[in-house]
């Protein structure tokens, strides 16, 4: 393949690039070094003007602060520049392809940002009288309706704050349902390929976690699972599509078996993007599933959140949903909180957060969902799956794809690093991709594959982007196969070279300290 890059000139692979001299400032034209606020700010500077405070007798109970806090201030110009410079040291979807498997890094429409910032949503207090927030409650109710309908479930708990929090909600609902029938079970089953939050959640909720074996094709081993079911098993946690990118064909049968054994089925819905509009988890017997609004429904990931993890629930688990929730009585929206729950919802397992969940994410997600509609969401799943399969099939000749024969992949393509030159691994490929202008795929997850590389393109990438990426990954892999030493020291063009994570962990420096006074003038 003789792909030329899109800008119309053909890069010459063998010319060394730009070897300009080091600079006095340490900057490199548009790539600017930036010190910490503690190094550039002062306690006397502020970027905020305040009205004068008239003098009054203090009522602070003799607890006036005397010690300095130690907070540096910056003027507004310095502040804007500081964070602008920092931002430019980040990769992001807005910049380019970000195929981080399991993370569904899709385009974040700016309409959603605009909607979320309408004063009617952004500037209302969670404890206002419900008569004054009917529009906000309507948003929650409408979104809930979409989520229930898209998943074919009975109810939805809107308050969980992210996927892992949603898992906790689901597992607590399971535990509450078991408790309600006086059935104290102690084990949750969970595949080894599961995301770390699954076992962590189960343990947090007081369960022992046991492994579900997998088949060689990368799916749950139905027979082995069935064999393990019994009166101690509270439930199973299954990811579908799973973290190897495969649809769990047997999920309906698994659900039936688990139910027959008195347990419940939790489905990790992080990968719902692959099937939205094509499959309803409710039809597969799922009892609870969280939906990462920050994945499938495109609320921005923000460099690590906030997210939102509503949990859809089956008829069996719905009675145990947490408070508060929104209900509708004719044209009037109600907020069911502790005081009113008694009448409506006495079996709730309790409360997960102070207020009503991630309102700012609900507006965004609903805006996204309405924009796509039922037809568009189905197209989302189809294009996401199409893009992933295109990557899988375009690269399986150079990269080992351990489950290539297990059928089409869903939203993500999984590769291993078998076959690289001695000493070269997934890490080197990832760092090589950084130089090429990409965010690397998810690496070393799932744990079941050697040097896993999990590539999730999502539906918001064009074919041209995929083609360029395929070419670039192919080129990097070829360098890894021949043991190109320059790959071993990649990235070369990023704001930093490889960072020393061992040193960071050995003697953690988690906050800034004033440097020791220099011993004497130099």
């Amino acid at each position, binding site marked *: 393949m003789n792909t030329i890059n899109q800008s119309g000139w053909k890069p010459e692979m063998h010319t060394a690039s730009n070897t300009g001299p080091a600079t006095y400032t340490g900057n490199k034209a548009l790539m600017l070094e930036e010190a910490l606020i503690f190094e550039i700010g002062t306690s006397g500077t502020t970027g905020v003007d305040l009205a004068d*405070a008239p003098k009054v007798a203090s009522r602070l109970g003799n607890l006036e602060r005397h010690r300095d806090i130690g907070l540096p201030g910056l003027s*507004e110009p310095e502040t804007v520049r500081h964070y602008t410079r920092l931002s430019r040291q980040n990769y992001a979807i807005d910049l380019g392809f970000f195929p981080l498997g399991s993370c569904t890094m899709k385009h974040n429409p700016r309409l959603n940002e605009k909607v979320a910032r309408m004063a009617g949503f952004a500037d209302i207090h*969670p404890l206002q009288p419900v008569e004054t927030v009917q529009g906000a409650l309507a948003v929650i109710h409408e979104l809930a309706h979409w989520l229930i309908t898209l998943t074919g479930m009975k109810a939805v708990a809107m308050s969980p*704050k992210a996927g892992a*929090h949603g898992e906790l909600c689901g597992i607590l609902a399971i535990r509450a349902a078991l408790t309600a029938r006086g059935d104290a079970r102690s084990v949750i089953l969970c595949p080894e390929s599961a995301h770390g939050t699954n076992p*962590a959640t189960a343990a947090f909720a007081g369960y022992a976690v046991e492994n579900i074996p997998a088949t060689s094709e990368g799916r749950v081993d139905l027979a082995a699972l069935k064999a393990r079911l019994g009166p101690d098993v509270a439930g199973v946690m299954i990811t579908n599509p799973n973290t190897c990118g495969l649809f769990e064909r047997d999920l309906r049968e698994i659900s039936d078996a688990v139910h027959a054994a008195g347990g419940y089925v939790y489905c990790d819905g992080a990968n719902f993007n692959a099937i939205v509009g094509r*499959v309803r988890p409710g*039809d597969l017997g799922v009892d609870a599933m969280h939906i990462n609004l920050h994945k499938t429904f495109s609320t921005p990931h923000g460099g690590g959140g906030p997210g939102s993890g509503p949990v859809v629930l089956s008829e069996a688990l719905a009675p145990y949903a947490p408070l508060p929730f929104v209900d509708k009585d004719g044209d009037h929206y109600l907020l069911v909180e502790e005081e009113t729950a008694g009448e409506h919802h006495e079996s709730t397992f309790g409360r997960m957060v102070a207020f009503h969940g991630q309102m700012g994410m609900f507006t965004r997600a609903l805006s996204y969902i309405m924009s796509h*509609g039922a037809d568009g969401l189905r197209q989302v799943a189809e294009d996401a799956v199409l893009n992933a399969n295109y990557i899988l099939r375009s690269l399986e000749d150079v990269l080992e794809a351990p489950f290539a024969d297990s059928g089409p992949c869903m939203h993500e393509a999984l590769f291993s690093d078998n076959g690289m030159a001695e000493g070269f691994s997934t890490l080197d490929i990832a760092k090589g991709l950084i130089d090429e202008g990409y965010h690397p795929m998810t690496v070393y997850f799932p744990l079941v594959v050697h040097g896993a590389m999990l590539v999730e393109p999502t539906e918001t990438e064009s074919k041209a982007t995929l083609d360029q990426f395929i070419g670039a990954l192919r080129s990097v892999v070829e360098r890894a196969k021949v043991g190109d030493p320059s790959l071993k020291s990649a990235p070369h063009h990023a704001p930093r070279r490889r960072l020393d994570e061992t040193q960071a962990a050995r003697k953690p420096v*988690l906050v800034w300290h004033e440097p020791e006074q220099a011993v004497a003038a130099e």
Partner: protein
Amino acid sequence: MRYLPLTPSDRQAMLGVIGANSIDDLFVDVPVQAQLDGPIRGLPNHASEMAVERHFSNLARRNMTASHNPFFLGAGAYKHHVPASVDHIIQRGEFLTAYTPYQPEIAQGTLQMLFEFQTQVARLFGCDVANASMYDGSTACWEAIGMAGRITKRSKAVLSSGLHPHYVSVAKTMAQYTGDTLDTALPELSAATDSARLINAIDGETSCVVVQYPDILGRIEDLSGIAAKAHEHGALLIAVVTEPVALGAIKAPGEMGADIVVGEGQSLGVGLQFGGPYVGLFACKEKFVRQMPGRLCGETVDAEGKRGFVLTLSTREQHIRREKATSNICTNSGLCALAFSVHLTLLGEKGLRGLARLNHTLAVQAAERLTKIPDVELVNSSFFNEFTLKLPKEARPVVRALADHKVLGGVSLGRLYPGADALSNGLVVAVTEVATSEDVETFAAALQEILA
């Protein structure tokens, strides 16, 4: 569809490369009975941007906003003026549309910001270290209780009656499953807190005492006595701060001996947003760092010796430690942490202290004005920007009546403690820099009229 770049001919070409006849071929692993044959019925199809925007602006207009009405709600969420540059910065695509910084070489922006945030939070709380954020104050609070349990290997937590009742509910919910026992009580409508109760309750079984500062009624008290008693019995003091602006005026909990300080960061940078997303703050003493939940950003160097930052100590976390992790948290509240940090950078020491002074002053003046209304009494002897009034009648209907007068006039204790008759005349009033003296007048006049 405007968000989908593939054209019909792209799709055809790609199916060809894959070797599939149609898109349905890629869904063969879905059992036939579970396959939907077309867009789900009963749901609308795609809509133009204009149509969606209109739908939302119609709904938004049905809400009464804090900025267009006299506004006095607090009780865990505060309205402060957020400089426009904060929102500008958090909308930079490089912050907004980045993931958690797993590839540090191209995520130094997020990482350095988190390092700065951690330092700001630690200093504000008077602690050694802080993490990179939790979901919100309430979940930070129960994670702290869990952490205290891990550290002390004990399971009895004593909760102050001044702790936000929703935080208590969250902790109670979790305690059902973790086997912790919680010693809780309802607050009283009085100037005195229940610190005596707390001190009495601490014993050799106690993992921690949890005290909110300022508390749900706005009261402020010295935590040193509680800290001393707790430490004496090998227990930890957890302080909970729901209004960080207060710490511009009053001592940090860490100064008074708190071992873990958690809080809700919403009041700086984040805004009200009907309750979320918010940002949980989490700080503690250095020696407890390996028991902390959540992400931590640490300093290191790159291969050329340049300073850089990475996520660190991840052996505490779910993706490495799985069922042995200190928490199941993964996605946290990064962008809100950024908003918090930017706002605090703009304020700086000087601005935060000035803002705190202004809040306190306005609250003192408002308290004076409101207690001029016949039969309205001030419960607090101390407060920062929030205080509790005792009304001559049940407060909850009064709040609704105030809303009819276009005044958002505080949070009734009836809303927070449904069924607690002794509290039902209590009204919690927060006064920040956004309240003008006309707002206070309007509020006072309406309240007087309603009570008359």
